[in-house]
């Protein structure tokens, strides 16, 4: 499942290559890939913005099956007991046979939607409600206790029986839930765009506690939990659009510490390993490693562009995707770059979306904040083979998707 386990620690068994050798294979789809791949029994599963859910042979890159849904699938599937679980923008949640792709059941939510607000991010006209183009992911499910749990744009956290597809309960929040729930000790942890982060009893669906993040009534820019949490040693770690990375006591909901990123979103889901928290930021484009107990900075490195992809820790290597179309492998101890892979679309740099140093070229990306321009700008930005997908490492092969429409296997 997303981030490797139910607690979303972001750890991969085994190690990642410390040098890039070659592309093992590239698998083409019909549209962007925002979803992250998961691996089960030598098969990779992921969603595509072309509306399909894919199963691909992890060794050869050949398609095993694909299953059409009614909308883009920028969510990451969970695979458990021979079933693939995943949600689609069509507002339905699917359970598919992992070997054949056949539908086991589908569950209808109250409907998907993006986070939206009047005057969001300063977009104009400010009296008009505009969907947030940076709300790119759908919630990815977690499977536990015979249920599959996932958030929805309808504001609910759902618990659906894995066998019957019947709703067990739903927990209503105040806005879009595209964060992915983490599960630990019978409790689900998830953030909402209503500015609250919740702990919910997985059996009953009752709230255990809620934690209040920042608010931004002016331009709705510094509000909402888009990041998905990780749980380790009784502490929940989550990023927030209010520019903080929070460490919250899993039992009480009390804040243990926060790390502020000066107005820069923390969309990435933190990875937690060996007493350290790994995460990255959007606008400031910083890769951070913090002490998990204190929140003190251990190191940070400047990257070239925004990071929405989440760091994956694989042995002594940390991998992360960047929106300029690069996958970066860093030494876990020093943070130094070991190698980078740049997608072909990023190299082509159509429309000069990137500067020569691969930072975003503001004047050619952001035309204006009026009407459709911000949406078009975001679209341009995402068109350079941006990597929203969180990398996965299995048997020293690195898998990730790109907005160029390809799923990659690098070795």
């Amino acid at each position, binding site marked *: 499942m997303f981030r490797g386990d139910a607690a979303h620690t972001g750890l991969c068994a085994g190690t990642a290559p410390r040098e890039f050798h070659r592309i093992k294979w590239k698998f083409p789809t019909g549209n962007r890939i925002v979803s992250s791949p998961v691996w089960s029994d030598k098969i990779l599963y992921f969603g595509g913005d072309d509306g399909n859910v894919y199963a691909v042979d992890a060794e050869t890159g050949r398609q095993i099956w694909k299953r059409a849904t009614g909308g883009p699938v920028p969510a990451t599937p969970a695979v458990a007991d021979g079933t693939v679980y995943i949600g689609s923008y069509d507002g339905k949640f699917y359970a598919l046979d992992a070997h054949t792709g056949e539908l086991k059941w589908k569950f209808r939510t109250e409907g998907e939607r993006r986070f939206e607000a009047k005057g969001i*991010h*300063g977009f104009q006209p*400010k009296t008009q409600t505009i969907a947030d183009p940076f709300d790119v992911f759908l919630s990815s499910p977690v499977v536990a206790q015979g249920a599959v749990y996932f958030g929805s744009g309808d504001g609910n956290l759902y618990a659906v029986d894995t066998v019957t597809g019947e709703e067990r309960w739903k927990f209503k929040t105040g806005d879009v839930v595209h964060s992915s729930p983490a599960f630990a000790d019978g409790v689900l942890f998830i953030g909402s765009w209503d500015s609250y982060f919740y702990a919910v009893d997985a059996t009953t669906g009752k709230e255990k506690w809620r934690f209040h993040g920042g608010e*931004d009534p002016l*331009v709705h820019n510094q509000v909402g939990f888009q990041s998905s949490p990780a749980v380790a040693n009784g502490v929940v770690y989550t990023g927030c659009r209010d520019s903080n990375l929070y460490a919250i006591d899993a039992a009480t909901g009390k804040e243990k510490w926060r790390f502020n990123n*000066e107005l820069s979103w923390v969309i990435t889901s933190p990875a937690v390993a060996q007493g350290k928290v790994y995460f990255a930021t959007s606008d400031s484009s910083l890769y951070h490693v913090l002490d998990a107990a204190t929140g003190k900075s251990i190191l940070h490195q400047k990257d070239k562009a925004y990071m929405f992809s989440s760091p994956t820790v694989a042995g002594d290597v940390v991998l992360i995707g960047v929106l300029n179309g690069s996958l970066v492998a860093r030494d876990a101890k020093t943070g130094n770059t070991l190698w980078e892979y740049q997608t072909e679309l990023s190299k082509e740099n159509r429309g000069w979306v990137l*500067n020569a*140093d691969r*930072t975003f070229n503001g*004047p050619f990306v952001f035309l204006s904040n009026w009407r459709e321009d911000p949406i078009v700008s975001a679209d341009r930005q995402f068109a350079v083979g941006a990597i929203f997908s969180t990398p996965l490492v299995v048997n020293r092969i690195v898998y990730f998707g790109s907005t160029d429409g390809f799923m990659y296997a690098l070795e």
Partner: protein
Amino acid sequence: MLARALQSSSASLPAMIKLNQGLNMKLTLIFILTGALVCRAEEPAAGRWEGKLHIPERELQLIVDLAQDNGGTWKGSIIIPGLNVKGAALADIMAKGSDLSCTVKGFLSPQSSGPAKLDGHLTGHSTLAGNFLEGGNSAPFSLQKTGPAQVEDAPRSSPLSKELEGEWRGEYEALGYKRQVTLKLASHADTGGTADFVIVGKRVNNLPVDLVTLEGRFLTVDSHETGLSYEGRLRNGELAGVVIQNGTEIPLNLHRAK
């Protein structure tokens, strides 16, 4: 820089006439006109140039206007319809023989790589081709002369009234942080109004102000480079207004510093 060049050149015309008081006015006019005609004849770069900028997978329309004033100083402006660039001033214009170069002022200036630049070469009197450099990227452009230049003059700051001159202070809150604002206004006979605009939040921001205008009692201070402006009206000894960034308006009242 261009605004200053224009201001100094317009100021020099009456000075020149004064120096030549003893000469026949007709002769002076003939001299000026002849000079201008000679310049135009000698400088094929002058005119309106229209064509394409060929960036990868995207062709942009490009219009460049170049002209010389009576003193021989170049001025110019650029239009790129696909990028919302209309009449942006050109600076550092160098025309030597058939080579021409200039930079785009205020627009298309990524912090990491400086202003955008045109490096061109004239072929005859009707073709201008070369490279457009921006953000560390380079792409060819090719332009044809289509007529006389229609250079857009950069807007000029207006003189300020005495009651506005001096130091003003205030405070506003945005995105959870308080910001202290200091605005020092001055009026000059040659350059009109100027402003030192400092906003202190988590760090000290000295905003580069390029335009200060007073229309009636309505003051506008613009920092186009940062996209931040202040608009206010003088009421009862106080500037009541808003700070504007990306279309978002936040109330900011400024009081005279004591």
